[in-house]
């Protein structure tokens, strides 16, 4: 099961990140997790939000390059080696991770957001191993 991530391209300019967050606030979009990839010229802001479609539309209307990406949000138990066990499963099948970042929603569980080049295969591997992945609806409920 996959989820949608909201991505925004931000050229490096003072105040640009704040403008993005302002738009999301105005549209009542709740942010559950963020990741910012930065280069010298621009940044890529990746967000897990309660309503990614509405977030994308609001940002595009406000003049931002915004898009949705399919990602996997995997529940990872809060124990040493928890993350490694999951990643090993997909690495064995030559599925590589483009990027990843954490997502915490309280309680004893943590989750990890993963973007991979082989989404269907990764989904299938995790399902077979009985590992829970969060869906779009799960995220909406968390918010």
């Amino acid at each position, binding site marked *: 099961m996959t989820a949608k991530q909201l991505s925004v391209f931000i050229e490096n300019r003072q105040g640009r990140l704040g403008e993005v967050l302002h738009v999301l606030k105005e549209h009542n979009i709740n942010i559950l997790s963020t990741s910012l990839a930065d280069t010298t010229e621009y940044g890529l802001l990746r967000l897990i939000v309660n309503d990614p479609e509405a977030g994308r539309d609001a940002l595009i209307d406000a*003049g931002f390059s915004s898009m949705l990406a399919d990602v996997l949000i995997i529940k990872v138990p809060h124990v040493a080696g928890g993350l490694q066990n999951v990643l090993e499963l997909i690495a064995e099948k030559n599925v590589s991770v483009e990027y990843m970042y954490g997502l915490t929603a309280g309680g004893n569980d943590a989750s990890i957001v993963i973007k991979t080049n082989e989404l269907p295969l990764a989904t299938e591997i995790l399902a077979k191993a009985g590992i829970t992945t969060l869906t779009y609806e799960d995220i909406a409920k968390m918010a």
Partner: protein
Amino acid sequence: MFWNEKMECMPREEMTKLQSERLVKLVKYVYDNVEFYRNKMDAAGVRPEDIKNLGDITKLPFTTKNDLRDTYPFGLFAAPHSDIVRIHASSGTTGKATVVGYTQNDIEVWSECVARCMTMAGVTKDDIIQVAYGYGLFTGGLGAHYGAEKLGAMVVPMSTGNSKKLTTMMVDFGATAIACTPSYLLHLSEVLRDEGLLDKIKLKAAICGAEPWTEKMRHEIEERLHVSAHDIYGLSEIMGPGVACDCKEHAGLHICEDHFYPEIIDPKTLEPVADGEVGELVFTTLTKEGIPLIRYRTKDLTSIIREKCDCGRTSVRITRFKGRSDDMLIIRGVNVFPSQVEAALINVEEVTPHYMMIVDRVNNLDTLEIQVEVDVKYYTDEIRGIEALTKKIAGVIQSALGISAKIKLMGPGSLKRSEGKAVHVIDNRKLV
């Protein structure tokens, strides 16, 4: 010191007479040999026999860079292809190059003009000169090379791109003169300083051109390198470097006017302006055989000085350039039109037509950044995707302009929209 005292110091009446004779001959030559000129003169109702002396030149229509483009590649050549021995080319306004052809005699004349200019800079047959202009389609390298050979100097054809080798040879060979762009020479002075070679060089003259520069830059070059620095002017359409150069007086650039007849016009009314007033420089190539040009509009803005120079030359001088009457930029010696960038970007599906060129000079070298807006639907949220797109655009720009540019992707709507005429260039170099 003169290379050709007779021509460079000729009394005015004699020069006017010579120019008149050459003009009359030229007009008949182009009318008989170039369909373009024949049609244009017929349309203007001018017959070759109507041109009896220099004063009649204003009866003739102007020629522009667009005419060269429209007749690409060889349409304006007057000599048969069997007589053409060399081709050079420079940037056109929209991608197609401006092509020029030279007969053996044209090469002789060109070399003679460059030899005159180098003599003005104090270069003689005893000198060792490094030519560090690009060799190839660009006129700079081969033009300076042939002129220096004509002079009898020892020529080191460095071309561009290897500063380390250049400075090493400058010291090892004991080079006494250099020909390159002024910004590159300033850059070289820093390389020499960093390598601790400044007191080991024997340079005494620098012949710099192919890009606009200021008197301040000239002084800086002279101070840093202890040379006499001279401004050589030219354009491939007319010949290449060697059309004009400043002498030791540095009081304007002497035109080789027995070969290139100058006029200054108002770029709007196209009427001649008074001496001393700034206008667009127009040249008629009085002796050229390959691709003679009648009243060619250079788009360079300058003014004319007719008084005899303290150096003894009587030839007319043009003052330092005051800019251009079109939007052409000269970046690292290469002519660049914003329209070329526009034409190149049209072929890149991922970008919108909005772009901005930012030109600057960092450590004496020109930099070009092109900001482009990427179409929303082509954004990817992966850095490698964005990098691949940046690289693709950089490749397209490099092949269109012949120089590299730093590409900066911008979000939609982030480049300023102007209400009137679109502004596509920010030039932070202070050259005028």
